[in-house]
């Protein structure tokens, strides 16, 4: 992995790169906006706090880059970074040829960062992070589009300094990593370098070079050691300058800032002049552009990687498995719950039978109806079923509503559900949630995604749902019993027809016989028994018919219990599945949508990166051609 801190050979023509940089700005802004929108939106797939903050940092960087590029001549920010006492400020002073940064023996020295810039640059063009630093303007045209920033240390006991550095660092295009003989690979600085090396360009300074040259020592010389470390980190040919900045500062003090002479006591291999030359002339406008472009490229790569780590998994398969597993659990649950509800309904069989009897009555007319009404009333004195004040709102179906006209069925179903609920169903409800979650985990469905919606579903008003299911099941069971098909239907119709007809016929014919005797037969003296006879006959017929009805139109609890149980189980299962079983697929679908969204952003980032790379290569290609 080779990564050079300074851009590779540069295109000779400036135009493509520059136009690229300028046109990049709005694209970056668009990307930033998209990223922020995405961050603000609600997500089903969890984003950890660190991921979120790193994405926010990336969004900030996008904005920063966009602002920095949206000018004619982008500014290159070169930042000095290193431990306290390695000589960052001294180095800046040596470059400036004047004591612009504080340098002293007390550690840490620099607390306020210093920004060294050309007077032609208006400070309001600086990144906001730089505006609060100490600003020092200069008039060296060779450094015209570069800003050199001296930062506080990163390793002293004054931890606030480290924070200041971390705020400044994102602004840097090139980091000048400054080390001394003691600190050239200190842990804190090295960690920071490793963390940043993928993000920006690095050049290295080994200051206090005079101290690195112990005669007759074993072990590596610090510069060799540093080069070896850098190689490990992927810098094959890093740009390393060995300097003795203090000598240059002293020299400048004695001979003036613009002296072209060289200090006398410089050790062998001192490279301060090369550093200055590189900063002034090596970093041409072309290189600046290329560094900027590379910086954007690195930022996009980072962004892409960060987003790819956040891509929610595809859970379609797991969702299907989970649904299948949940269906089994819910079937079982429906079975048990219907058992419980049924057994809680058992004590109310009097009411239920009463209800059915009332229902039954409505199919009869005339004498039979009156008789049945009387009998029902006599039989169900103890029943709690009372005329209903308001019509049941639950029974939306008008046909059903018409069927149960005035009797309150829900009063006792509610009562029985409450009894069952307090005893059993409440606990079963929370147990069911846990059971489902465990099942989902066994199907490898990520639990945190499912826990919330499942808990929410369990907090629905299950009493009301059970109530509705119970009534619906009762109605349905009744419908099945009362409207049979085939032969039974005929039989029923026959019985009802007969029951509606025969008592009246019997009465009329009894009365007819009586009248006939009274008027037609001479000397007929009506005994009281004769007068009572039509009524008695009618009564006997009614009783017979009643027995027939009870036998042929069974309206007893025992008869409908099985129908009812089956109906109830179906109702409950539908209800439970309607609420729970859809959840895994819903979640998977949501994740899928989020995935799509994120993919769109990632695609955009990749497109932008590819576009940038293409332009860079196109520019490189120019070199392949001979100049006319």
């Amino acid at each position: 992995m080779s990564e050079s801190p300074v851009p590779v050979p540069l295109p000779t023509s400036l135009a493509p790169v520059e136009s690229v940089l300028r046109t990049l700005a709005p694209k970056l802004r668009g990307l930033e906006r998209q990223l922020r929108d995405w961050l603000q939106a609600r997500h089903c797939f969890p984003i950890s706090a660190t991921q979120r903050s790193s994405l926010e940092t990336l969004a900030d960087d996008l904005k920063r880059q966009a602002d920095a590029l949206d000018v004619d001549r982008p500014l290159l920010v070169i930042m000095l970074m290193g431990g306290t006492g390695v000589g960052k400020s001294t180095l800046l002073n040596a470059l400036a040829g004047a004591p612009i940064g504080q340098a002293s023996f007390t550690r840490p020295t620099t607390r306020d960062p210093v920004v060294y810039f050309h007077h032609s640059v208006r400070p309001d063009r600086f990144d906001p992070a730089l505006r609060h630093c100490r600003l020092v303007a200069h008039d060296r045209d060779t450094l015209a589009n570069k800003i050199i920033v001296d930062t506080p240390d990163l390793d002293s006991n004054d931890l606030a300094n480290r924070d200041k550095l971390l705020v400044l660092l994102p602004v840097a295009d090139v980091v000048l990593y400054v080390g001394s003989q003691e600190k050239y690979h200190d842990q804190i600085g090295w960690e920071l370098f490793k963390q940043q090396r993928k993000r920006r360009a690095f050049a290295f300074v080994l200051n206090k070079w005079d101290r690195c040259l112990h005669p007759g020592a074993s072990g590596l010389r610090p510069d060799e050691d540093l080069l070896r470390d850098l190689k490990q980190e992927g810098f094959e040919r890093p740009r390393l300058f060995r300097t003795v900045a203090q000598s240059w500062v002293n020299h400048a003090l004695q001979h003036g800032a613009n002296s072209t002479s060289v200090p006398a006591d410089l050790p062998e291999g001192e490279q301060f002049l090369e550093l200055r030359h590189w900063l002034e002339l090596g970093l041409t406008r072309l290189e600046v552009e290329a560094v900027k472009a590379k910086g954007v490229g690195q930022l996009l790569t980072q962004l892409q990687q960060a987003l790819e780590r956040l891509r929610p998994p595809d859970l379609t398969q797991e969702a299907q498995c989970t649904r299948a597993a949940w269906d089994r659990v819910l079937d079982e649950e429906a079975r048990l719950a219907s058992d419980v509800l049924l057994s809680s309904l058992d004590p109310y069989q009097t009411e239920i039978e009463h209800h059915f009897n009332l229902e039954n009555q409505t199919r009869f007319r005339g004498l039979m109806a009156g008789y049945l009404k009387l009998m029902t009333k006599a039989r169900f004195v103890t029943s709690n079923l009372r005329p209903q004040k308001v019509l049941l709102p639950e029974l939306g179906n008008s046909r059903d509503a018409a069927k149960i006209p005035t009797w309150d069925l829900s009063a006792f179903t509610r009562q029985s559900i409450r009894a069952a609920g307090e005893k059993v169903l409440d606990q079963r409800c929370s147990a069911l949630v846990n059971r489902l979650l465990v099942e989902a985990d066994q199907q490898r469905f990520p639990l945190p995604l499912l826990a919330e919606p499942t808990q929410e579903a369990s907090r629905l008003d299950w009493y009301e749902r059970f109530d509705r299911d119970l009534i619906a099941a009762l109605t349905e069971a009744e419908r099945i019993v009362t409207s049979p098909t085939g032969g039974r239907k005929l039989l029923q119709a026959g019985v009802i027809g007969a029951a509606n007809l025969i008592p009246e016929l019997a009465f009329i014919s009894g009365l007819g016989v009586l009248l006939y005797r009274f008027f037609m037969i001479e000397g007929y003296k009506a005994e009281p028994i004769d007068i009572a006879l039509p009524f008695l006959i009618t009564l006997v017929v009614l009783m017979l018919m009643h027995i027939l009805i009870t036998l042929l139109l069974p309206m007893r609890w025992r008869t409908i219990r099985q129908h009812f149980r089956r109906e109830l189980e179906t109702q409950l299962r539908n209800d439970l599945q309607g609420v729970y079983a859809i959840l895994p697929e819903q979640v998977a679908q949501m994740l899928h949508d989020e995935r799509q969204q994120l993919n769109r952003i990632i695609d955009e980032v990749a497109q932008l990166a590819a576009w940038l790379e293409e332009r860079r290569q196109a520019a490189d290609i120019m070199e392949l051609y001979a100049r006319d």
Partner: protein
Amino acid sequence: MEPLDHRTLVSQLVDDLNWLEAYSRHAPESADKTGPLRLAAALVRNVLGPFLEGQPPLPLHVVVVGGAGAGKSTIVNFLCGANVAEANPQAGFTRHPIAYVGGNAATSLQWSAHFGFLGPLQKLTQPAASNLDQDVYQVRRVPTASSSSLTATPAAPQALATLEPPTQLLPGLLDEFVVWDCPDMTTWASSGYTSRLLEVAGLADIIVYVASDERYNDAIPTQYLHLLIQSGKAVIVVLTKMRESDMQPLLEHFRQEVIARLPRLPDGSAPVVPCLAIPFLAPGDLADPTGKAAKYRIALLNQVMVLGDPPLAARQRTVGLAIKCLIAACSELLEVARQDLEAIDAWRAAVRAGRAEFEARYRREYLSSERFGRFDLAREHLLDLLELPGAGRIVSGLFWLARAPYRLVRSAITGMNRPESVYLPEQEVLVAAFRAWLDQLRSEALQRAGQHAVWKHLAKGFEGPLTQEAHDRFAQLARQFERGQAETLQGAPRSVYEGLESNPTLLNTLRSGKLALDASAIGAALWIANFSWWSLLAVPLAASFTHSVVEMIGSQVVEHKREQVRSRQQKQMSQSLATPLADWLCHWPVTGGSTYERLQLALQRIPSAFRQMEDALRRRL
């Protein structure tokens, strides 16, 4: 815990501390506790243990520590009075501790071998370069003025020793001291070897902390200085490399910035840390510690001598402070396990909550609707017993006849009562409740698996052996419970009437009492009705009234017993089923040879071991 002999005590304590150190390495949040734990182990192993063994105070150990390139080797040379340690420009060259021993001290360097001197560090038998990056230490012999072998290099010290009076005042520091050169703690590679540094620092009687003008206010070396002060070591600070003119202001700044912020000692006093400054010296001066650099060397040696004289007192001070500091730091050391313990506590709370729910379900779903049918039989039997035997049967029969209307009315009324709804059999309720309990724990563990390793361990356990084991255990306990309960259920209803059956006097008294009541009630009814037709109404009324009173009393007795049985059964279930299960689940994470078992053991043993050690040391001191 009964007192252990000190060898066992020391090795066990060292073991526990080592284990905790290794454990803390794995958790990112406790990484900053690794150093203190290692130092604690080193203190116990290298100072406290040997002292209890009766090791002689000589030689004392001077350990030189500091950041990379701060000038440790220079200071070692100063202490030894010869150019023995090569000063090296490569930062972080030295990778393992090196002991410099004098001719005499070398022979008396008898380590107490029971605890493994310097713990995991092996002694190098062959001389090796200082940058050997392994868990080793090496011993280099230095010919001193007082030893006979003066032929070794360099020759200069000998010549100077005879020439200059100050060096004669300090005849061979190495006679009484072993000087240790340590690796640094600041370079990026140092995280691999700071444990070696801490191991030797634990051994030290005197620590020389070297800081250059670049490093004196650096965060990481200062952390180590704090750590060493907190472990009760005597520390001398040497500041190096400043310009000569900056010596005094730099010392001032150092005192103000670093020394003033040092932590307090366990007795609340501020630590006394002597500070010296050695300016930047030319290579020529550095090469000649006893000559050109003598002025700085002597000041340093004086400080070392002051702290190390007499040797016994110095060693006793080292030991005494070490144990005090260990005890003071104990709770902080054990902080590594705080989060684990919190997680385990949270698990236990969850288990207990589940247990409460389990018991509540048993009560609500089963016990409250369980009638214990035998009690109804027992009530019938009890009332039967109160009827008159033998010839009295006729009288009883008459009363029975008189009460016929009452019976009719009563059966009609009881017929209107709803039977208890929702009856679930006991076994079914128990199994369902237990499954719910396990499911709840499991889903909790799964949901919190990301929070802490304990929950992850549990979640994994549920997938593996835990679920099956829990079910087996439950089945076994439930069988036992059922067996125990069968006896009480048969016994309790019988006890309702057994007392009466075995006590004929009481029975007869009650029978005659009831008879008297019935008779007097009927008599009163007849008297009030004045033997008119109304008597036909009054007599059954009176007979019914007395009977219902008796019935009511009998029911009360039976209900009371039934309630008793219920609560007894609840208690029994809790005792023989819920409690053992909950205990087993609570302890599951810390059993079966898991990490948490070891952790708990270490946490229990370390504080008491510290205290025992303090007692043992107090006896010696």
